[in-house]
Every structure is written in structure tokens, then in C-alpha cells.
């Protein structure tokens, strides 16, 4: 057991740090560019240096580096330290690009991957429908070939970023006679067309990050399909052997916990810092037990990945562990902010420190995270069935 990095990796860390010292923040005239232009310019250089888009081949605009989870981890740590833009987040780079790399046609890779990882085009994901949430494969949005192109009718929901996206990757029912899972195709389409109407869904936080999307004879070319007709379900399940971020999520959790401790230090109870309160101290350390467990569990999974060993069922649990923790920390924070818990999660608070509003936002957002991408109950099904080997329940087995 040794939590340090070998000399080879420490040398790599120095190399990354040197690159960052010279490249970020941008200097001279470039320092006056708009924020996203600065980030785009920096990302171009970081890709050229081999630090970003590492799993993407050079011919599609990536840096095509050999997979190395430790190097990827060092890059994340150093970029985080320097507050430099890392690989673009978002559904396009994280979901579509790996899917195209594995299952896309050559022209699709050439056309879409480069602009997507550079942030020149933005994607949204058309999966969930009003009647198809956890039971996604029951989706009903139809696509059929009419006069040489796909014509799409139906509705998607919870579509994050549909209001700003240029394109959507979308699951549609194309084979009416086929069984549930075999009747679905994975289509790409432009969001900028008359057949598409985007209506924002306002969340309980007050913000509107996701939308309903209505298709009325929306169109896309016949070859904008990834994989074959009826293979969409399998294409959407594509898991890729790219450099998975094993401990980034745990690192975020640690940062959030440190924020919680800071909150307990500066919040007063009966004229004394809340952190002096025996009950608060108990709850903080109780939460910390879970935070550190998650952190060390991340170290172990990273080690397993380095050794190309299966980490076991823990891999199925990370999402639930992380969203549970987000909720527990937010609940404790709400108790700490006291009266401010009656206020909106806005930054325009009279007199209240800005962070209090962020915790109130987290109190609600942590529920969104628990639901998004598979509810906690669905996660428990997955852990129970795939992790513990329990039989599927009879109702799900029938469909």
C-alpha cells in the first residue's frame, strides 16, 4: 500500500505542471478574449500536448494517447489545481463521442467528434419520455423513412440543454413489429428545424435546465443512424474502455465536506460557532465516515483499474453512494444555515453570506442528482440483481 506516485509519474506531473504554468491563464492579448474563447484556445493546446481528449484518435481531433488511468488522474489533479479548463463536460463529449468511436460510421466520426470535443457544437440526449422513465425501452417516439429520410414524431422529456443544443442523439421506435428492445434505433438529428419545439421545464429550484421536446414531422437524413436499424438499445448501452474517472467524484465529495465544515465554523448557535455544538460535531464526523469511505474506495478502484482488475460490485454502487452523501451533507447544511433556510437559493440575499444560498440550492439539487440518470431505487435494483445476484422481480421479467 503506497499512496504516492512512482518517479516516472511524478516526472509526468512536473511536465504537466510546467505546461500549465506556461499556458494558463492565457497571457497578453489572449487574456482579453471572452471566457469560452479562452477556454477553447487553451483546450486546443492541451490536446496538442496530449493532455486532453486522450482517448480520441488524432484524425478526429483528439490526442490519441495510450490509456493510462494514473496519467489521466494526474492531469485532472494538476488541471484542477491550476483551475485550467479540462475535457469538456456535457453529454456530447461524455456520451456521444465514446458511442461514435465504438459504433459510429466513419463519416459520422469525422463530421461530429472534432467539433464536439472542441465545444463548437452542443448536443442533447433524447432518451426519456413521459411514459418511459425507468422503463426506458418502452419508449414510443416513432421514426420512419419517408422519401429517403427519417421522419420523427413523438415527445421527449427531461432533455437537459435542449434549448441550447445544436443536435440531439435520440432513441426512436423504428421497427413496429419487433419486440420492445429490438425495435429501437439510435438517430442523430439537428435541433434547428421547424419540426422541433422545445419547451423549458422549470425545476423546483426555480431554474430551467431541462426541457420537453416535441417532434412533429422532424426530419433527419437516412444515414444519420448509429449502428443498424433496431440496434439502438445496444448502441445506447455501449460501455467503453476509456479512462474512467474513478476518484474525481469522491474528490468533489471531499471538497463539499470541507465546505460543510467551514459552514459549521462560521455559523453561530447561541452566540458560539455551531461546530462547538456536540450534536453538530457528531453529525459532521458521522458524515465524514462516509466521505472518507468513498474517497478510499475511489483509491482502491483506481488501483484496480491500473492493474486492469475488476473492482467488483463496488462499481455499481458509486452513484448511489455519491448521491446519498450529497443529500446527507445538504440536510446537515440546512440545519446549520438555520433561519436562512426560509430563503430562496438566490445570491441576492440581504446580509447573508453567499454560500448559504448555495447550500439551499444543494438541498434541492441533491434530489435532482438522486433521480437523474437512474433513480436511487433503480440503482438498488441494479446493485441487488447485478451486484448481489438476486433474481429479477417477476413483473420486470415479463416485459
Amino acid at each position, binding site marked *: 500500500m503506497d499512496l504516492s506516485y512512482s518517479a516516472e509519474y511524478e516526472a509526468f506531473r512536473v511536465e504537466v505542471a510546467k505546461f500549465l504554468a506556461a499556458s494558463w491563464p492565457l497571457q497578453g492579448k489572449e487574456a482579453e478574449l471572452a471566457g469560452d474563447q479562452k477556454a477553447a484556445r487553451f483546450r486546443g493546446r492541451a490536446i496538442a500536448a496530449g493532455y486532453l481528449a486522450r482517448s480520441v484518435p488524432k484524425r478526429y481531433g483528439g490526442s490519441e494517447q495510450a490509456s493510462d488511468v494514473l496519467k489521466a488522474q494526474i492531469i485532472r489533479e494538476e488541471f484542477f489545481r491550476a483551475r485550467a479548463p479540462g475535457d469538456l463536460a456535457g453529454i456530447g463529449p461524455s456520451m456521444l463521442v465514446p458511442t461514435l468511436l465504438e459504433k459510429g460510421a466513419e463519416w459520422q466520426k469525422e463530421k461530429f467528434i472534432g467539433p464536439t470535443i472542441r465545444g463548437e457544437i452542443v448536443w442533447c440526449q433524447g432518451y426519456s419520455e413521459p411514459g418511459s422513465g425507468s422503463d426506458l425501452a418502452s419508449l414510443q417516439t416513432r421514426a420512419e423513412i419517408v422519401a429517403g429520410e427519417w421522419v420523427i414524431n413523438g415527445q421527449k422529456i427531461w432533455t437537459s440543454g435542449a434549448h441550447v443544443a445544436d443536435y440531439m442523439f435520440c432513441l426512436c421506435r423504428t421497427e413496429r413489429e419487433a419486440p420492445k428492445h429490438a425495435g429501437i434505433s439510435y438517430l442523430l438529428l439537428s435541433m434547428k428545424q421547424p419540426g422541433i419545439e422545445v419547451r423549458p421545464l422549470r425545476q423546483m429550484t426555480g431554474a430551467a435546465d431541462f426541457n420537453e421536446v416535441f417532434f412533429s414531422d422532424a426530419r433527419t437524413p437516412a444515414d444519420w443512424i448509429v449502428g443498424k436499424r433496431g440496434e439502438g438499445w445496444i448502441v445506447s448501452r455501449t460501455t467503453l474502455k476509456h479512462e474512467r474517472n474513478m476518484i474525481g467524484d469522491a474528490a468533489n465529495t471531499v471538497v463539499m465536506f470541507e465546505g460543510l465544515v467551514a459552514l459549521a465554523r462560521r455559523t453561530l448557535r447561541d452566540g458560539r460557532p455551531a461546530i462547538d455544538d456536540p450534536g453538530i460535531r457528531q453529525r459532521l464526523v458521522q458524515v465524514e465516515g462516509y466521505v*472518507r469511505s468513498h474517497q478510499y474506495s475511489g483509491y482502491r478502484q483506481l488501483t484496480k483499474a491500473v492493474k486492469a482488475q475488476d473492482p467488483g460490485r463496488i462499481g455499481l*454502487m458509486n452513484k448511489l453512494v455519491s448521491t446519498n452523501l450529497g443529500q446527507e451533507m445538504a440536510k446537515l447544511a440546512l440545519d446549520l444555515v438555520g433561519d436562512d433556510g426560509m430563503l430562496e437559493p438566490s445570491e441576492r440575499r440581504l446580509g447573508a453570506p453567499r454560500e448559504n444560498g448555495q447550500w439551499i440550492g444543494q438541498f434541492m439539487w441533491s434530489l435532482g442528482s438522486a433521480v437523474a440518470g437512474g433513480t436511487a431505487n433503480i440503482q438498488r435494483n441494479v446493485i441487488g440483481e447485478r451486484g448481489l445476484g438476486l433474481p429479477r422481480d417477476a413483473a420486470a421479467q415479463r416485459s
Partner: protein
Amino acid sequence: MNFDLTEEQELLQDTVRQFASNICTPKRRRAIFDGPDGHDTELWRGLLELGLGAIAVPDEFGGAGLELLDLALAAEVLGAGAVPGPFLGHSLAGLALLYAGSDAQKKTWLPKLASGKTLGTVAFAEGEGRWQPEDWTLAGGATITGSKAHVPFGAHADLFVVGTRGGGLALCERGARGLAVEPLPGIDRTRRIAELRLADTPCELLPAGPAAAARVRDAALVLLAADAFGGSAQLLDLSVEYAKTRQQFGVTIGSFQGLKHQLATMAVEVEPARGLYWYAAHAFDHVAAESERSAALAKAHLTQVYMQIARDAVEAHGGIGFTWECDVQIYFKRAMFDRAFLGTPGAHRERAAALAGW
């Protein structure tokens, strides 16, 4: 960056696991649990022959010279098997001598503890939650007078490491003048406890006691956390196995979402927490600044998890889970031991808060 076990460490765990499943069968464990004495000397001899008395004892004293992590890995497996015996107290007596003893004391006792010729234990508790070195009140000198509660296998031990005022450590031998042992009705019948009474009993102080007592305590916390992880993981497996076997309404009950989710929730409590005791054991030998606090955190978290998992496991087993006959109760009671021995989770959380400077 390597946060995983070595092949040797995995082999150590496999060896102990094999031994436990071959020799300490559920039937034998049950006989010890239900028996009057609680100490199966043949079983203990077998564990000593595997080297479990010698793991952390340096080579020069007949040990393997390994680290606390290795000792904790053995504790995890013994916890998973709910193996009865004096491993905990015996290991701690050895560590106390190693950290606090004079050269002569080490030379006299460590080889005997490593081989198991002498059975050691520790006597720390003074009642009402007073477990920590700073709580000890017995005055240690040429002789010692007073009593200590909850001494593991006190009725069987040959050598007692007794905590004294100011965080000191003193050695007392069975048979010494004024030394008496009274078995206590401990709930964990796999790890019997006794009260130790000393009346002007001759003792020998360990010279580095005040400096080393906290370290012995921290090692104990890690071993308890490891035992708790092993027991929790085993209870999860037993509960899952039961859910896959038991049939109701014509199907295995594990297909019902209510039970499935309970089991998944148990798994999410147990599985990620393994690293907590690994890290505490690693810090004990390699990260001095974090050693004390990591041990407190691991003990507080894992023993609380164990207690809850034990309650969940009883529920998951239904009516049979509530019977004396079901082995879940053996783990349940080990969880009660792990939780209370050396201080409750709450006590160690408060220590962890103070150690963070909060």
C-alpha cells in the same frame, strides 16, 4: 499509487479463511458459543500455528515483523468467521510490549506471546465509559491496587497489560499476590470478558508506557474496525444467500423489491467502508499525523455500520433470524462487543472532532 493488498496479504487472508472454514465450522463455533468456558484451546493452538500470534512481532523475537495492516487483515477474516478466541487481547498485549517494553521485557515476553506459550490480554476499562489512557486511575508502582472491567479472556490469560494513571502500562502475571479474576456475563460468547481485581499486586511498569499507550489504543481501534468490516460483509452474504434460497408465494424472496432494496442498502453501507480500516492501518505505520484520528474514525464508523447491519440481517432472515439457533445472533453480539469495547462510536466521533481541531 497503490491502495490494494499485496499477493502476500491476500494469501494471508486466504490461509486464515481456509483454516476458519475447515476447522472452525459452524458446529464447533456453536459449541464454543454455548459452552461454559468459551475458550477452545485446540482452535487457538491452530491459529497460533498459522502464525497469528506472531504477525506484528519483530523477527528477532520470533515473529513475522509485519505491520498493523497485516494484523488487521487477519482480524477481518476472523471477524467474518466470527471465530471465537483471544486474538484481540493477545495481539494488543504483544503490541503494548513492543511499543512500551524495555529490551529485557521484550526479550522475556515477546517470543512467548508470538508462540502463544503465554496468553496475553489487556486490562483498560474502568467503567462508565472510561477506556482511554487519560481516563485510567490505577496508580502504577511496585504494586498495583484496583480493578479493571471487560478484560478479554481475563479468566484464561497468563499475562495482563494493565492501564495505569497518566497513561502508563504495567505487567501483572496470573498467580501473583492479590490478583483475582471474576468472569463477567459478556454478551459476546465468542470473546469472553472478565473483571480483573488487583490488591497490592506486584507489577512491572513498561518504561515507555505513557508514550505508547495511545498507540496501543489506536491499534486496538483498527483491529475492532477490521473485525466489524469482516462481520458486516459476512452478514450481508448470509442475508443474500437466505434471500436466494427461501421461497414464498412460489418464488425466491430475493426477487421481491422490498427485500432486494434492503439488501442493496446493506451492501452500500458495507462495501465502500473497507478502505476506512485499510487506510487507518496504513496510516498507523506510515502517516503519523493521521494515525490517531483515522483509527478513531474507522472504529466509530465501522462498528456502527456493523451494529446496524446485524439488525438488518436479523430482519432479512425473518423469524428464524430472531432465534438462538440462527448464527446471525453470534455476529449480532460480536457487533455489540466491537461497538462498546474501547468506547462507543459517539465517544470516538467526539475524539475525531477534537483531533481535527474543531
